[in-house]
């Protein structure tokens, strides 16, 4: 598997660390309640198909949101997570 790092270009999967679904980017408010935090921390759509998840390119230290297919392993797009706040 190869992932296009927005910084470094196409790199072998072994340079990356996986984190989980990109819902991690949508952090609830401190007082959002048990249900919201449960959904954020634990519950997953876990699609057999296109998903978005988070990867870290260890060499350049970029966190990346990757759009990909969990059935075919096709990578559809990648973007730095920092762009959401920049």
């Amino acid at each position, binding site marked *: 598997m190869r992932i296009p790092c927005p910084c470094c270009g196409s790199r072998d999967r072994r340079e990356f660390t996986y984190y989980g679904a990109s819902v991690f980017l949508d952090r609830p408010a401190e007082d959002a309640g048990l249900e919201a935090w449960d959904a954020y921390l634990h*519950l997953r759509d876990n699609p057999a198909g296109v998903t978005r998840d988070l990867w870290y390119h260890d060499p350049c230290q970029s966190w990346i949101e990757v759009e990909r297919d969990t059935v075919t392993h096709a990578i559809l797009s990648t973007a730095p997570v920092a762009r959401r706040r920049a």
Partner: protein
Amino acid sequence: MRYSGFRVFTQGLGGNKGWTPAWRRPDPKPDYDIVIIGGGGHGLSTAYYLARNHGLRNIAVLEKGYLGGGNVGRNTTIVRANYFLPGNSEFYSHSLKLWEGLERELNYNVMHSQRGLINLFHSDGQRDAFARRGNAMLAQGDDAVLLDRDGVRRMVPYLDFEQTRFPIYGGLYHPRGGTARHDAVAWGYARGADRLGVDLIQNCEVTGIDIQNGRVTGVQTTRGAIRARKVAMVVAGRSGQVAAMAGMRLPVESHILQAFVTEGLKPVIDHVISFGMGHFYISQSDKGGLVFGGDLDFYASYAARGNLPMVEHVMEAGMTLMPMIGRARLLRSWGGIMDMSPDGSPIIDTTHVDGLYVNTGWNYGGFKAVPASGWCLAHLMATGTPHPVAARFRLDRFRTGRGLMDEEGTGAQHNLH
């Protein structure tokens, strides 16, 4: 037909013409008391124990492909009861006891081999953690022995005791741990359930779950609608999709775990050995292949196949621990799809829909759990109350934080368990 050595002998004399099918191939009936979605190890054992322990007969197991086509046939065949947290501890202990009588229970030789399992440790800190585990195993009534370096060397002298990267300090030995022939477990339960009247329906994919007024009423399948009073989702690898049919999101992410087997070799590894630093575990099958595995590929996936980084990592770990296997050749690798839960422990529970049950989140632990998982889900479905040894396998434990069973201590990141 009952199996025995005598029957093998007489059938052999008669050209093996008289063997009858191990299970029937029934068409689905329109109505069952209980429908189990998923004809893997857990689904088949659930059906078996519903019939065997609770006298229920009007049961169907619906399998989208062939019986035992999922993880029960894609694992490294290890059977053990060496968990240390309450919940897991009693459950896997119960499961191991069921394993110990399984051949005679099912009249099917699943080749359960209690050859002993050694978990190696490589530092004082790891020894302390394994000591805690071993004491938990003893407190549960199971067996555990703490070996020092020489004790390990006496049992498995071929390890590389000279390597200094992660030197072997000792091991936690679990004599009753071992292996079993994985396919045979599915087939044995299938045959056993079939003999008790359960309908095993292959090539029958569930496409919808019928719910009326908060109560399950049946399922839609590729072979027509089937009514049922109770439905259980026992579909590791597809749990998210099936649960979605009932409007549920599960605390589960699906991941690939690869496993490997070498060409056949004369006996050389007599135990199950686990190398914690390298996430490598190995045993030798009765046919002679070295069967081994490592970590997840670590990304969410439904493709039952892996990639090279983990393949290489596992082989490098093997060469670190036991370089005598360098000239064994990897024959085949395959991947199973794991339901990874946020604490690495399973879920056997009711759901928000009356009559709908869920069995998921087995992480790495599914194969050894097959007997007890079926036993406990059958108990829950038949009696309405959780079986005592699975009482902690609650779906809501993540929301409340009560009774988490995080054996790895890595927290709510699905792939780290």
